[in-house]
């Protein structure tokens, strides 16, 4: 504020009205209050974004560890240890932002918490490798190492991303073993549902059957008017096609191919992979 008004007269020092400690204008206190509130909000958001980034990175690392597994069934000890260590770190990050997500703030920052999707993906994928079943929402919620409520979209989008991981898993194992993971070399279409499904019998469902069951379940969901949903649905269809093609290739040429032959898929253990 200039010392003189537009007539060139000196302004009175804090004249007339009350309001002693007004720094800039008569609305100063009001805006100072708003500033404090907004700063608090921005700081909180910043903390959440940082933690979320770390949790995303750790979840991806869990997924990479899982991708190094080449069969269904109990995870190798080293993989499980790796997962446990990463989960401990994730726990630390998530519990640090627990207070920031209390009450109405859970949804306020839902957008900055995309790490939960990634975490769901990691949990669901590890569980799939172990048991060849889909972890349900309550079990995922229980496995999240902090009291942060998952939304149905966190779960759904995480499971959507499972397709990408299953596709990579199917592809890599097919390259290593010359057949689709689970089930037998012949009878790709056989869903194995009738057979008792345990390790001793050696008969599991084919992974392609799982692809079909899970993707049909998604296709049957009511339409969600959301760009993320649509793009994930597309990605899912692409993954299913790829594994169908893989299964077909094995059924046709499987017998002619030497073990260790790599099919024409470029996605291997690519750390930049971002599903």
């Amino acid at each position, binding site marked *: *504020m*200039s010392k003189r*008004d*537009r007539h060139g007269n000196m*302004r009175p020092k804090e*004249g*007339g*009205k009350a309001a002693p400690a007004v*720094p*800039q*204008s008569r*609305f*100063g206190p009001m*805006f*100072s209050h*708003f*500033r404090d509130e*907004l*700063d608090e909000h*921005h700081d909180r958001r910043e903390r959440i974004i940082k933690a979320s980034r770390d949790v995303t990175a750790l979840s991806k690392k869990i997924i990479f560890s899982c991708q190094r597994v080449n069969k269904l069934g109990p995870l190798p000890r080293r993989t499980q240890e790796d*997962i*446990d260590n990463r989960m401990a770190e994730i726990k630390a990050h998530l519990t640090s932002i627990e207070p920031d997500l209390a*009450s*109405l*703030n*859970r*949804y*306020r920052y*839902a957008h900055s918490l995309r790490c939960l999707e990634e975490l769901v993906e990691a*949990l669901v994928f*590890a*569980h799939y490798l*172990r*048991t*060849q*079943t*889909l*972890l*349900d*929402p309550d*079990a995922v919620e*229980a*496995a999240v*190492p902090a009291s942060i409520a998952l939304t*149905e979209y966190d*779960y*759904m989008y995480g499971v959507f991303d499972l397709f990408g991981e299953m596709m990579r898993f199917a592809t890599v194992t097919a390259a290593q073993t010359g057949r689709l993971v689970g089930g037998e070399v012949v009878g790709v279409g056989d869903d194995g*549902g009738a057979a008792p*499904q*345990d390790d001793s019998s050696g008969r599991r*469902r084919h992974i392609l*059957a799982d692809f079909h*069951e*899970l993707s049909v*379940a*998604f296709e*049957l*969901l*009511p339409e*969600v008017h959301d760009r993320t949903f649509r793009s994930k649905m597309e990605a899912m269809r692409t993954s299913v096609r790829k594994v169908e093609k893989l299964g077909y290739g094995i059924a046709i040429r499987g017998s002619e191919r030497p073990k260790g032959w790599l099919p024409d898929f470029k996605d291997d253990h690519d750390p930049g992979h971002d599903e």
Partner: protein
Amino acid sequence: MDSDTKMTEAPNTRLLDPKIFDHLKNKIDEDQQVRDALSQVIQRLDRAISHVQGLLSRVHATQRSQYPAFLAQVEAGIQDEITVIGELNEMASQHPYYKYNQKWSRSIQNSIFTVLLCGWLGGLSPNSSAESTEPQQGRLVTIEEVGSILKVPVNLKDRDSFHITIEEYLFALVDLTQELSRLAPNAVTLGDPALSIQIASFVGDIFAGFQVLNLKNDALRKRVDGVKYHVQRVEEVVYDLTLRGMVPQGSEDADKPSSS
């Protein structure tokens, strides 16, 4: 990392328990129903707001002497807004506030704006019972007052319920300075330069207030950036008036001095 309890419960003959997707389907349907119901209320709110905004646009052609009758109409219109906001409050409070707030945020901003402008012009006086003679212009309705006028809580932090946010109030405040910057030249045309001077002082003070905020590079920041043009416009009017000696005596002290 996960208790394999589920494994023992369900035989492993299936990949997934069909209940999972039934659950998801129900959630999606529920979500859609809530959105549809909210849309209907918000549509009615928008209609009420747009009526009040239409009424308020008459201010640019209304003499100050006619404000009492004019403001009475506006206040009646705002009553309609309040009724619908009451319904929205009730419906929205059943769900997490931030899950759906982007659906109505814009409407609530507009509604706050009608309250701010009406209040600035002298309406919605807090002591109407005290039989104030003439409406006084230049009052800033605070966010708390907006809350009590619209009968909704303000800036809730510990309770997940419908409320007015600080951001919504600030957005509406920018709408107010914009509208006043249009009124400033029109007041001169209506032969009321004193009102323009008052606007200049007010808008200048609001501008100074916004300087206090640490704005991030977001929508609010973009909107607030526009305030300087509103200041500029009213200062031009004041400049024109000053140049021609048209500034009414004493009008400047009616309010606090502006920071031009």
